[in-house]
């Protein structure tokens, strides 16, 4: 059951335990959802890039392209996230002035 190591399976008793359980579930579902979107985006973009004409099986070149593309997409995502975060910080500072 605890696929992601969320500990005991006994139902929580105290208020704190209930709260912690909810927070843990919330965070693991958010992370899962995020990963799911990322994977589907990687699939969409890298399929388009690496497999323009699908053959009867994946060629070595296509496999290498997919691996590179996947790493590149994640690096790209991180760069976008960093830039967005930075800009949001600047904008909220502007709002305060």
């Amino acid at each position, binding site marked *: 059951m605890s696929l992601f190591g969320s500990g005991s399976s006994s*139902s929580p008793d105290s208020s704190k335990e*209930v709260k912690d359980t909810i927070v843990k579930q919330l965070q693991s579902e958010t992370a899962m959802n995020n990963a799911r979107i990322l994977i589907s985006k990687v699939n969409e973009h890298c399929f388009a890039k690496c497999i323009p004409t699908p053959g009867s099986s994946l060629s070595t070149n296509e496999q290498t392209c997919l691996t*590179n593309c996947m790493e590149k997409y994640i690096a*790209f995502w991180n760069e976008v*996230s960093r*830039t967005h975060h930075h800009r949001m910080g600047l904008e909220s500072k502007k709002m305060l002035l």
Partner: protein
Amino acid sequence: MDAQTQVDVSKLNEADKKELSQILANETQKATIQQTVHSLSDVCWKKCITGKITSGRLDQAEETCAQNCVERWMDANLAVLKHLESLRG
């Protein structure tokens, strides 16, 4: 993932309820931002990664393009909002 763990919300005291709703608000905000980053990555990838993929790392041009793409997207977003505001009078 383990949605089977039964939680009894009625066991929550007021302080924990308050804290939970704060955490929920924070997580919702984080999720919204991540959602934006996903859609930005989608848009900017199409604009910036135009050639063949030969490496798993971003080259300098791609990195700069990603940054410019995000910055200009946000400029555009603000410009639209500004103009909308002016239309309202």
